[in-house]
C-alpha cells in the first residue's frame, strides 16, 4: 500500500513536470508572438504597402509583391508535378513502387534548404547565367513545396471510396474519366489543404532564396531571369542588423506581416481539414 502511495506521489510529480513543460512551451510561443506583435504591429503602417524599400528603410511593397510572386510561381511549378506524382502513386504504382515513391517524397522533404539554394545558385544563377532571378527563386521554393503538395494529394486521393470508383466504372466511365470526374473532386479539399500548407512553407523560407532570388529594391517584373526579386524574409534578416531604428522597425514590420500571412494560410488550411477530413487523415 505504501509503495503504491509512493508511486502515486512520483507519478504526480512527473505529471506536474509534464504539465509545466506544456505551459513553458506555450508561454515561449506566446512570448514570441507578443514580441513580434508588440514591435511589429506598431511599425506596420499603411504606407509600407505602397512604397518600396529604399535606403535604410522605406516600405515593403516590393518585398510583399516579390513574396507573392515567388510563392505563386513556385506553386505553379509544383502543382502539376506534385499532383501528377501523387496520382501515379495512387492510381498506377505497384505497392512496392508506392512505398518507394512515398519514401522518396519524405526524403526530399528532409533535404536542408541551404543545400537546395546552393545547388541552384551554382547550377542556374552562375552556371546557366540566369543571375538572381524569379525563376531560380521559384524553382528553389518549388523543390521545397513538392513534398507537401504531393503528400497531401496522395493522402487525399487515397481516401476516394472504392465504391465510388467501381460505381463509375460500372456505369461505363473510362478510367481516365474516373480520375477527373470522381477522384479529383473528392480529393480537392485535401489537395487544396496541401497547397495552402505549401504556401505557408514558401512564405517563410529564406535560406534557399538568398542566393537564388537575390534581392531588389524595386517592384518585381515578369522577367523570369536576370532580374532579382525582393521578399519579406530577406528584410527581417538584413534590416535587423542595421544600426538604425528605422531599419529595425521595417524588419519587425516584415516579421509581423510574415507571421500574419503564414498563420492566415495555416488557419485556412486547418479550416479545410476540420471541414472535410477526420483527424487521422491530416497532413502537416
Amino acid at each position, binding site marked *: 500500500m505504501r509503495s503504491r502511495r509512493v508511486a502515486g506521489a512520483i507519478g504526480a510529480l512527473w505529471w506536474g513536470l509534464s504539465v509545466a513543460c506544456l505551459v513553458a512551451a506555450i508561454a515561449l510561443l506566446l512570448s514570441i508572438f507578443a514580441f513580434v506583435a508588440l514591435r511589429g504591429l506598431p511599425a506596420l503602417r499603411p504606407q509600407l504597402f505602397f512604397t518600396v524599400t529604399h535606403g535604410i528603410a522605406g516600405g515593403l511593397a516590393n518585398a510583399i509583391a516579390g513574396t507573392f510572386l515567388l510563392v505563386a510561381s513556385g506553386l505553379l511549378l509544383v502543382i502539376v508535378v506534385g499532383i501528377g506524382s501523387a*496520382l*501515379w502513386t495512387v492510381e498506377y504504382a505497384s505497392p512496392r513502387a508506392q512505398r518507394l515513391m512515398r519514401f522518396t517524397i519524405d526524403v526530399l522533404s*528532409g*533535404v536542408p534548404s541551404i543545400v537546395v539554394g546552393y545547388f541552384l545558385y551554382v547550377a542556374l544563377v552562375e552556371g546557366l547565367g540566369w543571375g538572381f532571378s524569379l525563376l531560380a527563386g521559384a524553382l528553389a521554393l518549388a523543390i521545397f513545396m513538392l513534398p507537401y503538395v504531393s503528400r497531401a494529394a496522395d493522402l487525399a486521393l487515397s481516401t476516394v471510396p472504392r465504391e465510388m470508383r467501381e460505381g463509375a466504372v460500372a456505369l461505363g466511365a473510362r478510367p481516365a474519366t474516373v480520375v477527373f470526374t470522381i477522384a479529383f473532386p473528392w480529393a480537392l479539399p485535401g489537395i487544396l489543404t496541401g497547397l495552402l500548407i505549401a504556401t505557408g512553407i514558401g512564405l517563410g523560407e529564406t535560406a534557399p532564396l538568398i542566393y537564388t532570388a537575390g534581392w531588389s529594391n524595386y517592384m518585381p517584373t515578369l522577367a523570369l531571369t536576370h532580374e532579382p526579386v525582393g521578399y519579406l524574409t530577406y528584410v527581417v534578416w538584413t534590416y535587423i542588423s542595421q544600426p538604425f531604428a528605422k531599419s529595425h522597425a521595417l524588419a519587425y514590420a516584415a516579421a509581423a506581416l510574415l507571421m500574419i500571412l503564414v498563420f492566415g494560410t495555416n488557419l485556412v488550411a486547418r479550416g479545410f481539414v476540420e471541414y472535410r477530413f477526420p483527424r487521422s487523415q491530416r497532413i502537416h
Partner: protein
Amino acid sequence: MIAKPWRIQRVGAQAVLRTVTITMAAVSFAVIFLMLAFLVIYAYPAIRFNGLGFLTGTIWNIGNQYGSGSVSHNGYAAMPGAQFGALVFIYGTLMTSGLTMVFAVPFAILVALALVYRVHPALKPLANALVELMSGIPSVVYGLWGMIVLVPWISNSVGPFAEAHLGFIPFVGGGAGSGDGLLAATFILVLMVTPIMVATIRDVIQSQSETIFEASMALGSTTWQAVTRGVLPSVRAGILGSLLIAFGRALGETMAVLMVCGGAINIFPHNLFQPVNTIAAVIVSQLESALTDSSGMAQRSLAELAVVLFVITLSVNVVARTVLRGTDRDGNRA
C-alpha cells in the same frame, strides 16, 4: 464498328495519363539524384584538393587573394595558403543538433503526454492548434527573437549566473561573452524542433495506446506507470522516428542558427556560451567570401560542405523513415 476507335481512345487516354503522371513522379527522384550528382561533380576538384584533411582539418582558409602564385594538390590549384578543414563546422553541426535532441526529446515527450492526458478536452483543440502554429513560425522570426531577446539574456543573465554558481560543471563555466554561441543556437533549435516532435508523438500515442493505457490501469498501475511502462514502450518506434526527423531538421536549419551562433571560425567552443558554426550557416555566411577566390576552390569546397551535410541528413532521414514505416502510416509526418 464504333467500338474500335472508342477502345483505342480509351486505352490512349489511360496510357497518356499514366505516362504523364509517371514522369511527374520521376521528378522527385530526379531532383534528389541531380542535386547530389551535381554537387559531387562540382565539388570534385575540392574533394581531390582537400583529400581526407577536409574531414579532419580545423583551419578554413580560402587563401590569400593578394598573394602571388598558388598551391596545388593532386593537380588542382587554389590560392596561396588555402586550406579547407571542415571539422569545426561538422563538429558544430553535430554538437548543436545533438545537444538539441538531449533537451528536445524529454521536453517533447512530456509536452505530448500533457497534451494527451492532462489537457481538458474542451481546451485540446486550442492547445493542439498552438503547437501546430509553433511549427509554422518562419525560421527568420525565430532568429529575430533569438538575436533581440535570447542572446542579450544569455549574455547578461544566464552566462554570469552560470559562471558564478555552476562554474564547477565542465563546459559551463568561463563566461558568456557576447551571448551568441552554442547555447543560443541550441535553445532556438529546441524551440524549432519541439513542435514537430510533439505533433508526431501525440499522434502515435493517440492512435495506438488507448487499449494499452486501459490495460495497464486495470492491472493496478498509477496513470504515470501506465504511461511509462505501457504506452511509451509501445510507441517507441514512433518516438524514435520523430526524433530522427527532428534531428534531420536541426542539422539542416540555417537562418535561425546563423543569426545566433556567433560565426566561429578555426576554433571549437570551450564552453556552452562560446561561438559555434554549423555547415548550413557557413555556406550562407562564407559564400560571398568564397566568390572572391579566383581559383574557384573556395566555392567548390563549400559545395563539398553541402555534400557532407546532404549525406548526413539523407542518412538520418532514410533511417528515420525506415523506422517510421515499420509502425504505421499515420506516424509518418514531417
